[in-house]
């Protein structure tokens, strides 16, 4: 079972599952947004059609090697995140690289994507892309603070930096971490709002203002890769949240239900929100979310 082929099989299966689930979630989010706006909305599988169409579209131009590599960088980030995050409890899924990395490694591999995207967008030479990138990176500095605080609180409380250990803690105690360390959960959820880049934090790729920002020169295969990477990344992040705060999942159906419950939070918050400017977004993240993060650390240290 330890052979290289088994590992590759695990990676491929995980990727396909993440792709399908992530794409469906994005389609569902479009549907739900439409229902909130009193529209009929596209079918939930609309994103698959879009992806298929983008794949079949020709891409006759590129602006240079970094634009070409940019989507691959993003893919590295999202697939690596997926590899590190344990999908199911108790090793019921392929282990992938679960035991080879930890939370801090995860924090860093997760920012690999934005940097790759930034490099790809930079080479296109479109000023809109560069503006979008600066906004995206600035916003990232904003939400990383509460996110790191939440993770530090967890790591301190249970004296481990491994995700698998944190899941074991929950399995043994029988309580989810969102109840044993509620402040960390709140801080992490608030940081997640920024991580998913829905409204009000969607100024990075504002379609009319910035012509979709970093993506503005990418179509066809590049956009297809970015889109699939986005859905894989969304699934990986949601799984991480479920693993950390909701006790993981025993089978895929439970996982899907739990992740969707988490996914509804940024989505529904986004539907009813207008858009923040970048500095407003940063100040938002350094306000209450950081306070909750601080509370989480204090809670973890003193209780």
């Amino acid at each position, binding site marked *: 079972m330890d052979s290289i082929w088994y590992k590759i099989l695990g990676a491929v299966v995980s990727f396909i599952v993440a792709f399908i689930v992530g794409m469906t979630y994005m389609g569902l989010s479009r549907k739900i947004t439409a229902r909130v706006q009193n529209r009929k909305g596209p079918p939930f599988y609309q994103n698959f059609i879009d992806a298929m169409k983008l794949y079949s579209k*020709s891409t*006759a*131009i*590129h*602006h*240079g*090697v*970094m634009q*070409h590599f940019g*989507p*691959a960088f993003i*893919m*590295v980030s999202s*697939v*690596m995140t997926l*590899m590190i995050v344990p999908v199911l409890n108790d090793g019921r899924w392929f282990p992938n690289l679960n*035991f*080879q*990395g*930890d939370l*801090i490694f995860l*924090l*860093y*591999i997760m920012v*690999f994507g934005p*940097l790759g995207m*930034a*490099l790809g967008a*930079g*080479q296109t*030479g*479109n*000023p809109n892309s*560069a*503006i979008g*990138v*600066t906004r995206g990176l*600035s916003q*990232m*500095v*904003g939400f*990383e*603070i509460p996110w*790191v605080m939440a993770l*530090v609180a967890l790591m*301190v409380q249970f004296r*481990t*930096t491994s995700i698998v250990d944190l899941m074991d803690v929950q399995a043994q105690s029988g309580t989810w971490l969102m109840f044993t360390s509620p402040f960390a959960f709140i801080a992490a959820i608030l940081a997640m709002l920024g991580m998913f880049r829905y409204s009000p934090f969607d100024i990075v790729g504002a379609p009319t203002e910035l*012509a979709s920002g970093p993506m*503005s020169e990418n179509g066809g*295969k*590049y956009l297809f890769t970015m889109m699939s990477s986005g859905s894989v990344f969304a699934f990986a992040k949601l799984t991480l949240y479920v693993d950390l705060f909701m006790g993981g999942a025993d089978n895929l159906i439970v996982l899907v239900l739990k992740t969707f419950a988490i996914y509804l939070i940024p989505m529904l918050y986004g539907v009813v929100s207008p858009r923040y*400017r*970048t*500095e407003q977004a*940063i*100040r938002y993240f*350094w306000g209450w979310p950081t306070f909750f*993060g601080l509370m989480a650390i204090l809670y973890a*240290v003193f209780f």
Partner: protein
Amino acid sequence: MDIIYLIFLIFLAGAIISWLAGKVNHVLQDILFLASVIVPSVLFYMNVSVGQEVHFQAAGIDLSWGITAFGWIFSLIVLGLGSLAAIYSVGFMKGKERRGYFYFNYVLSIMAMLGILFSRDLVSFFIFWEIMTWSSYLMVIYNGQHTQSIGIKYFIFSAIGAYAMLTAIVVAHSVTGNFMIADLITAYPVLSFNLQLLIPILLLVGFGVKAALMPLHVWAPGAYSNSPMAYTSVFSGALSKMGVYGLTIVMLSMISHLPEGFWFREVLAWMGAITAAVGTLWAIKQDDAKKLLAYSSVAQLGYIVTGIAVGTELSILAGLFLAVMHAIFKSTLFMAVGAIERQTGTTNFTEVTGLIRKMPWTFLASLMSIIALAGIPPLGGFVGKWMLYESLITSDHFIMIVMVFFSSTAAFLYCYKFLFGFFLGQEEREWAHVKEAPAIMVVPMVILAGLSFVLGTFPGILLKPIDAGMQALGFASTYQHLWDTSIILNGWGNQVVLQPILYAILGIFVIFVVFLTLKGYKNTRYVTTKDISSSGEVPKEHENLTFSVNFFQPFMRAVEPAMRRQIDRYYNGFANGLEALFDFTRKIYTGNGQTYAIYVILFLIIMLLIKNNIFG
């Protein structure tokens, strides 16, 4: 004659000869210069073993030279980086003025730094320290008149540090009766508490200046950015590490004897963390690459100081690993800036854009170094950052880790600014003629970048000598407890296994690059950066579409309150105050002999009165 004398003799002779040889032949001068750096390095690694010492007497003082296992780590930085930067310098200085001056100071700095590592007594330590300061000062003012004020700033801070160190040496001599470092360390635990505090503080001021620690850092941006870039890579890469070297010895052999939980470590660690945050914020604001990298160096040295000040095994391992990594990637970046400056004549982000197709190798080296600097796996910076965070968590520095993490995330902003500003963005016609730098400059950069790649997966190569050095300073071996060839662990037993991660990253990357390339391979073609979707408008050739002014304006708006205070201003205020004081003093010292006579008489009367009062 001992080989150690020979090394220093070659250095000295090489410095002078390569200066004078410029009058004969430039090629000869280059060769002599390279020889005078590389030959002693080779001799050092071939013939000098750890623990080898020579003793001699000068002016009645016992002096002793020899390399310890701990100093050996830093000799890697000094000589390895020194040799590569020397090769680079030959290309960089080609066709420039005052090459002899440059070469002389360069060789002298390398010699002084090696001398510091060799010094086993405080006197030669101080002498080499001063040679290092002087030669680097001469480099700072290399560019002529307008750099005088920057040079003076550097010099004043260095002088403050040197006087502090000299005082410490005198105090130490009064305690131990000789100048040996080993004697001081053995005598330290039995000293009175005040002296226990005084000696490290004085030494730390001296080392803190070179390590650009927070209140003492103001000289660094100016000095780093005004020396010739070929030297700055050594200045920031190796010379600042001498401060770290001293700092580590002081921390480990003196401060560790202070009572447990004493504030000293915490204060120093916090100073490091604040240095990191402030340096990062200022780096984001810069529009000049040299300034940006200079502030970034300040910030990175902040991490190193934090790691060393926290003082657990893992944190010191992290600090020293980061020190070497910083030497590698920061010097590569300074070299890249030097190459760009040489090819384009400017280092301002708002002027230069779109060099990626003109200088691909420089870009590659910069990209690798930037990824290492940002601490993204699988490059070397990640290992250091990871160990630093883990050490902070396992030693209960929770707020500090958030602070450090903030500065490390914010570092992405200036990292991207560096890459975008120079290499990406619109390709302007103004820079169409730019060519890649000559091979003699590119090769050292690429070697260093490749080194940071190798160390990212096999940090054991570097952690082994670091571990040996730490054992020399009294730590237990950390092998297999905190690290293995390509595994890093924290104190709680959690680990990152680097090798499969590297393969996974490379595999995923290659798969998707192949996918992107093969899909529609035949029909894809390259278009210029003028061919962008700009609302249907056709940008004219001379139109500049680059976005580089006020690059991170929204972020700067968000952090504006923190940036309003500039420590420089306090120093300026202090200097103005001093000037007023000196003005006043000048009024007292009129230059008239009679007034002096009155002063002397008054002084004597007062002294007599006091004496009578006290003893009467």
